């Protein structure tokens, strides 16, 4: 866009510059008028507080990134505020409320999954045995006894049919 006072600009582009200038001025006044109203009527947000928060966060990130500031205690090998240490895998022992067996806390979830018959591998085992008996008795397609997952992350369990060589139980 040629500058308004450029000598060699054609009358045509001078005119369009002129119109552009008018439009731009008008838009600027629109914004100025709106902001003026908001500021005068006390409707503006507390920018000072917001900016202070931004400043504190920026400062915090710098501080945390600096390796010389003793970093955040990470990992499982720390002493907690009560002076206690804990093993990486929780070793409290209690009774499973489903089957009554004694289970170690850190292994409770995988145990419960099998115990309750939930979870992909547990259901696949059941599906496999149920479909085996079904195909013997009917010509219909195998019907799973358990409702399929709705979780979109899951891949189709049927693909892993052959993978059930032992559950990943340590």
């Amino acid at each position, binding site marked *: 866009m040629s500058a308004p006072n450029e000598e060699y600009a054609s009358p045509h582009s001078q005119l369009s510059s002129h119109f552009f200038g*008018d439009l731009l001025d008008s838009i600027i006044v629109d914004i100025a008028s709106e*902001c003026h109203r908001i500021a005068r*009527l006390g409707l503006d*947000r507390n920018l000072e507080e*917001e900016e202070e928060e931004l400043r504190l966060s920026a400062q915090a990130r710098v501080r945390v990134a600096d390796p010389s500031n003793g970093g955040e205690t990470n990992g499982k090998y720390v002493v907690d505020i009560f002076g206690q240490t804990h093993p990486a895998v929780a070793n409290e022992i209690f009774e499973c409320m489903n089957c009554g067996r004694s289970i170690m*806390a850190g*292994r409770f979830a995988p145990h*419960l999954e099998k115990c*309750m018959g939930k979870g992909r591998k547990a259901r696949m085992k059941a599906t496999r045995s149920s479909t085996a008996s079904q195909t013997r008795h009917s010509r219909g397609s195998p019907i799973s006894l358990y409702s399929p997952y709705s979780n979109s992350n899951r891949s189709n369990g049927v693909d892993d049919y052959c993978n059930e060589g032992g559950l990943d139980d340590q």
Partner: protein
Amino acid sequence: MNHHRQRFPLQSCPHLSACRSAHGPNPFRSLQPCLKAKPLGPTSVRREPNDAVPRCSLCSSSSASRLYACLACAAVSCWSPNLHSPPHAAAHAVAAGAGHEIAVDLDRAELFCSLCRDQVYDPDFDTAVVRANHMFLPLPPPTSHPKDTKKRRRAVEYQPWSPDPHERMCIARGSSPLPPDSTCGLRGLNNLGNTCFMNSVLQALLHTPPLRNYFLSDRHNRYECQRKRVKISATDNAKSVAARLCLACDMDAIFSAVYSGDRRPYSPAKFLYSWWQHAANLASYEQQDAHEFFISMLDGIHEKVEQEKGKPQSQGSGDCCIAHRVFSGILRSDVTCTVCGFTSTTYDPCVDFSLDLEPNHGPAKNSTTKSHSCNGEMESMLSSHVGGVSTLMGCLDRFTRPERLGSDQKLFCQNCQVKQESLKQLSIRKLPLVACFHIKRFEHSSTKKMSRKVDRYLQFPFSLDMAPYLSSSILRGRFGNRIFAFDGDESDNPTEAASEFELFAVVTHTGRLDAGHYVTYLRLNNQWYKCDDAWITQVSESIVRASQGYMMFYVQKVLHYRGNEN
């Protein structure tokens, strides 16, 4: 009825005051027919006939960026200080004498004092402008909240309670005082096998003030509840399966354990068992999404209440169960026809706010104006980038911005009686007691059959004012921020303090989508603690500010009490 005037400091000038007193009780009545409203644009001022182009009486300019019409004699003058000194509107005021100082901006419907050389404001004038826009004001939606309209429960004075002598005796007999301990309620939670998603949310809930107070005040006694449930099971076979389960009872047990003073890490095994029975589709030994767990849990507590009462409970009022009493707010959705300006409004309850992170580098800085002509381009014109950092308030700005729905998403307009291109805008009708902000960091693409995590840092404040996102603010902004009591205004009590929140818990996620770890930061007595499964450690404020927030929990700074219906 005029309490809205007290909220806005009167921004008038002596010339405007003089003009008002000279023209009696309704000084702007003659202007009313000249105020021309447009569906989505600013109100302008024109004399009939509408199509005459206004020109400055002194220089005939019609393209000046500011054209003013004198309120006294309707003479049109421009204001171009770069071209004319004095500007023509000021020259008119001086020449025409007293009473000709106040003029109105033809394109923006704003009052201007040519002698003070400043824009001035008047509630009666603003009322006239809003009246001119009456056909564009959203109608109050059909009676979804009869309580709101019929008997507004007014806020009452807080009256502190003290036990009477008999109650004192009961307290002394039935309890023992907790040792003065600033780490009360802090207790590690054992990881039962990829259950940090559950532990992190539980830690936040265990320190959610209204929830903590509810359970520690024995408002859900798990022994009594169990007795009731056993009775139901015995007498009613149909209900017996459902009666076995009560997530609130399991929560009660965890509260008791965590506030007991025992410092050894607690195993929330029973809770896991109960939750897996409630949320069968999520029951697996695999890392789950903490937010999904949070929603599922609140749902579980609510469902139990529904079963007891035998009918669906409305979530919006929060009267149904403690989960909704604490977390439920109401969202307002306005859909405006871009052709005729007709707006339809709906209200929906929500238990949290799920916010998108901006798609690319950095969001808009917190803008001070909400332009009604709303394209993405206009918004970024009005604001600047803050060194490309995403902020929670930026996400909220985005959440409540007017969104132009595509031409493939036309909605039916009641006024036009056809599908038209529309604008949609969300705002908050009622803030919850505790606001949970969930940042959508996990993108699941069903088309590409993959998911990814967005690691970008998000700045979140420790102190948050939600006022700009309230329906009253958004609605006012849509109509030029006029001094007027719009529908949606909480005219019951000044709600400035009721929109202020403070942060008390942050759930963070580190690592990859498939191999990650959840940790919660809690604020107790102005000290921050990190809750990493069984390990509770002290951390500095900086660590929390610099962390990758996934769910942030804020509680209202001031609680307002409503009088009981009885």
